[in-house]
């Protein structure tokens, strides 16, 4: 079976599941569209306020505490919990770094926020010649197939 047929079959199966379950959907709760309370300045952790009670199929709040480990590995959460992320973060929070085309380094745009984890601080023009060879996937993970103009100026 061709790969395109496999993916279409997968999506058809998903659609069938969705249809058959439609009648029960209204019983399933929504996460809030935005955080009901004002959020504190700087990084906050969910369990500072939320008791770690698990409800339905939701993951425990403590799993989303913004430790350094969480921040450095946030890609694992973004791939499956974007709805929860969106309760506190606007999409532009992601787009500051993850964009197919940028005008300046995020650390330049947010020079007044050195506490935020921003990639490419300092002279990354020199550093990327080492880091790119060391772990090219780390470049690709964020830049994807952006082929941004700064890259293609040298990488032809």
């Amino acid at each position, binding site marked *: 079976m061709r*790969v395109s047929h496999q*993916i279409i079959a*997968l*999506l058809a199966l998903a659609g069938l*599941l*969705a249809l058959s*379950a439609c009648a*029960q*959907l209204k019983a399933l*709760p*929504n996460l809030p569209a*935005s955080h009901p*309370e004002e*959020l*504190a*300045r700087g990084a906050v952790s969910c*369990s500072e306020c939320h008791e770690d009670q698990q*409800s339905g199929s*939701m993951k425990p709040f*403590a*799993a989303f505490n913004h*430790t*350094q480990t969480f921040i*450095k590995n946030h890609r694992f959460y973004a*791939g*499956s919990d*974007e*709805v929860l992320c969106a309760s506190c973060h*606007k*999409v*532009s*929070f992601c*787009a500051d770094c*993850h964009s*197919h085309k*940028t005008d*300046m380094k995020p650390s330049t*745009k947010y*020079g*007044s926020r050195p*506490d935020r984890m921003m990639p490419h601080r*300092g*002279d990354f023009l*020199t*550093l990327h010649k*080492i880091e790119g*060879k*060391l*772990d*090219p996937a780390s470049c*690709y*993970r964020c830049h*994807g*197939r952006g*082929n941004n103009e*700064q*890259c*293609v*100026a040298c990488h*032809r």
Partner: protein
Amino acid sequence: MKKALFCRLFPLLLLTTVPAAALAESSVDSTTILRVRQDARAGFETQTLVPLTQYLGVDIDKLGDGNLSAHLYGWGRLDLDDSMDTVDNPDRFDGSLSYGYLQYRFNYANARARAGRFFVTEGIANELVDGITARTDLPYGFGVSAFGGATVHTVDIPGMATDGKGDGIFGGRVNYRHKGMLELGLSGLYESKAPEPAAPGSAADSFGSHRLLGGDIWLKPHNMVQISGHTSYNTETQQIAEHSYLLQVTPSKELVLAANFDEQNNRDYFYSSLLFANMIRNLGRDSRTAGASASYTLGKAEISGDFKHYSRETGKAQRFGGELRGTLLDNSVRTGFGYHYLRSSPDFAVAGSASGSFHEVRAYALCDTKGYFAALDAIGYFFKKPVENSDSAWELLGSLGYHLTPAFELSGDLSYGQNPQYDDELKGLLRVTYNMNTGKGGTK
């Protein structure tokens, strides 16, 4: 021509959102940045660069029946100087619409639909699409999402007459969750046939269509243990593209221990990127990293240590170090210090240098009061062997600003540094930020 038209229409498009924003719950985030930089490199004509960049994000909620919303974010830049930097800024005007879509959010099951330009981060998909997407939770712990539309093209790779992307893309993810203990996901994406590069020989056997299948997992078998990760499979090369997994152990609320493992089969992982496919010959076959970290939170301070081992066919390297972060006075003062050392084989060195090893030292402090805010940030890279005749690359940045109102602030940054590219690098910028929100609650 298209770019110039976009740059003229973009501000106009954003202005049209203002009346709607006034009627509904809305937020507007505007940042205007004027940079000033003098570029004086030996052998090149000295240039003064004065780009003015406008970032604008608009979110208009509760339109129509209250469930419809509009979201827009992008930037435009105008170079105020006459001379142009032909490397970084080949055009006097530039801009980009990062995203812009209408969203309908249903009252149940976290169901929503979007139409327009949006990011997709579902499972192994990480794409920008002009099209439609929808997702919903389903009974019994299941969930489903799907997207489809046109790919967002970027600049062509020089000499290839294409950016390497097909014109259409679709995909989706199905997932199953069980009681906050387990999530399993299966995702896939299919992009239409990749264009033929103008110089096909240069990327022979290493470049092709973007078609992936993947599985992801989140597992919490015990209150202290959490495993997350994914594996992707390239259906074009019929090989595993990537494994990426993270194990976290939290023996106490304050202590987080983590171990991670990543492995990429380079040809299969970078297969749909014409840019990376062109470099693949020097990348080797496999990339593997394994690491561990520990972080301990003590009151308002967090101390962490980490180690990572890089293994490539071209060489090996290790990075280790630590970081201390702290906050004071209800988060209004934030400070941090970090040190890392990369011990690398010469295979990863910058061309002409005898070593790829370097020390990295960083310290910062930031104070944010109701009136003013100020920040100092110092970062230095100290090379074990000179890189382009320099022993180090360092930068010191100072920022000072004032909250004119809770929503409106004015700030300026000044930085000075020395590095292999520049004997002296002095940069400055002025920043005007306006963040208005007429809705309730908080969103960052």
